[in-house]
């Protein structure tokens, strides 16, 4: 399943704030998003900002058990986890992802701290009928980005800021343009601190194919109507 362009994705941490509300959120967000990113709760969400960190710590279940409470796939669904937690269990993650109907597993720490596992990761994804996808920062080496594109990933995820949900005074349009140039026709998804239709528009106009909202959604997850309304408001930025 490809990511719709322009598209809006939603990030949620599995079983946050609890299993029931998470399942409700998956159902609701599947109707108002173009794709879903589901975080595998971890004890060490080190690249995340304070809000997403709390969702990891407060999730009712931890690890892949939390993923297994739902079936996904109405819209493209990508699992997100830290490869640090699964260094010797990549196959297991891929198997679970495949069984629950996910299209890919995104590991934000793969390139930064476990690049020696890159080939392993790509092969494992493919062996389970999944597509690789890669998380990059604005200053990720250009040659590496060029190499990643050759793996034909489902998408490249550009983290716009240093951590999820923390907006810094960066020229994100320029950074998106630069990365767009490097990834060429590969689907480019951007996220971190997306919280308004204006920002969605800015990111899409700068060259991203899709955006993901996460932190700004957290306090709306308990209320389906509020969550739906917020996503519809953000969708206004895609037009």
């Amino acid at each position, binding site marked *: 399943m490809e990511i719709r362009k322009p598209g809006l994705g939603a990030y949620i941490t599995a079983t946050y704030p609890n299993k029931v509300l998470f399942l409700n959120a998956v159902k609701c967000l599947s109707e108002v998003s173009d794709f879903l990113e589901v975080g595998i709760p971890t004890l060490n969400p*080190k690249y995340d*900002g304070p809000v997403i960190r709390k969702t990891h710590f407060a999730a009712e279940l931890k690890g892949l058990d939390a993923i297994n409470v739902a079936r996904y796939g109405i819209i493209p669904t990508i699992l997100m986890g830290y490869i640090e937690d699964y260094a010797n269990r990549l196959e297991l993650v891929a198997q679970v992802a495949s069984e629950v109907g996910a299209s890919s597993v995104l590991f934000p720490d793969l390139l*930064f701290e476990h690049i020696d596992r890159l080939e392993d990761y790509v092969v494992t994804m493919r062996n389970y009928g999944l597509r690789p996808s890669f998380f990059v920062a604005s200053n990720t*080496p*250009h040659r590496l980005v060029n190499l990643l594109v050759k793996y034909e990933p489902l998408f490249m995820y550009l983290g716009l800021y240093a*951590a999820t949900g923390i907006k810094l*005074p960066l*020229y994100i349009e320029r950074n998106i343009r*630069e990365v767009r140039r490097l990834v060429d026709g590969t689907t480019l998804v951007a996220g971190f601190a997306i919280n308004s239709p204006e920002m969605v528009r800015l990111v899409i106009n700068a060259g991203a194919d899709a955006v993901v909202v996460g932190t700004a959604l957290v306090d709306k997850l308990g209320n389906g109507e509020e969550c739906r309304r917020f996503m519809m408001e953000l969708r206004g930025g895609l037009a």
Partner: protein
Amino acid sequence: MIPHYWYNINVDLPKPLPPPIDPYDGDSRIALLMRILPSELLDQEFTALRYVPIPDEVRELYARIGRPTPLFRAVGLERALNTGVRIYYKFEGALPAGSHKLNTALAQVYYAIKDKAREVVTETGAGQWGLAVSLASSLLGIKATVFMTRSSYMGKKNRVLFMRVYGADVHPSPSELTKYGREALRARPDHPGSLGLAITEAIEYTLMGEGRKYIPGSVLGFVVLHQTVIGMEAIKQLPEEPDLVIGCVGGGSNFSGFSFPMIGAKLRGEGFERTRFLAVESEAAPKLTKGEYTYDFPDTGGLLPMVKMLTLGHDFVPPPTHAAGLRYHGAAPALSLLTREGIVEARSYGQDEVMEAARLFARAEGIIPAPESSHAIRAVIDEARRLPRGSVIAFNLSGHGLLDQDFYERIVG
């Protein structure tokens, strides 16, 4: 000709730089950066550009202070060593504050003023950075407050004096002005200070008042970025590609500034294929040779985000040394990564062998080198004696030592 661009090596590194992270306790340090740093510097820290334009105003300032700095053939040193190795050095001590530090001080103060700051706050070890910030602030018409490690404050009285001549407020660190300073003094009344602690004090002081911006002297990516003006000039000035490039390392900005444009060319396959790069540190703070590659705080108090670097631990207090500018627990993340990858070699020297090198260089070249830069000179001498005749060494003489009376008094006895 002053370069039009600084060079960002992050986008050419063999592996991506791990992002800064927050610890799990307390408020977000990443969010804190927005309150304390000039905004343009934050953008430069994460830029996707390989070449970052130097603003015209900063280029004009570079011209006013005497950039480009000269690249000399070390004729006298070559003659003294008589090894048949050709030696070149870039002389950053030619700048009016006496060291390379002015390259980023001018840029950072410029960006602070763009953010409507009325005062810049910083830390300093030996005083070279503090002096550069004081000078830059004076040129650009803004107040500077400097926290200087106590051991240097006592030993480098001339630098304290000249910082004050430029109009800066200078405080020995640990000081009574901040919570962290008071705690350190309570724990150890004779605390010699450390750069890490002085950084913490400077940040705390920045947050205590309005209109203040904190500007750091080393380690962070944008500091290294500004210092690449040295290497960008050197590439144009060097008449031949060196076999070996050498610089000293405190936090890593002078070594990186000099070598990164050349390392970048090598990584891209655009020259310097046979060049080796050697970073020289003090045995008093041997992070490159003995440090651990891990996430750590750049400052003792843990007010800044953690970065992945070679580090001796943020609470490491280096023993007092005359090369106070090298007394720092960590090395810039990009330099740490390149060292880990074996692209940069590292070596540490003790004080006595460095003093001997400083004396030899002063007598052969006529320039009194800074104690920090003398570490690089020590390596140049040792390598010149090892390399085959006809080899070429280039090094960065990051500063002069005319204000390092304590160091030279020990040399002449």
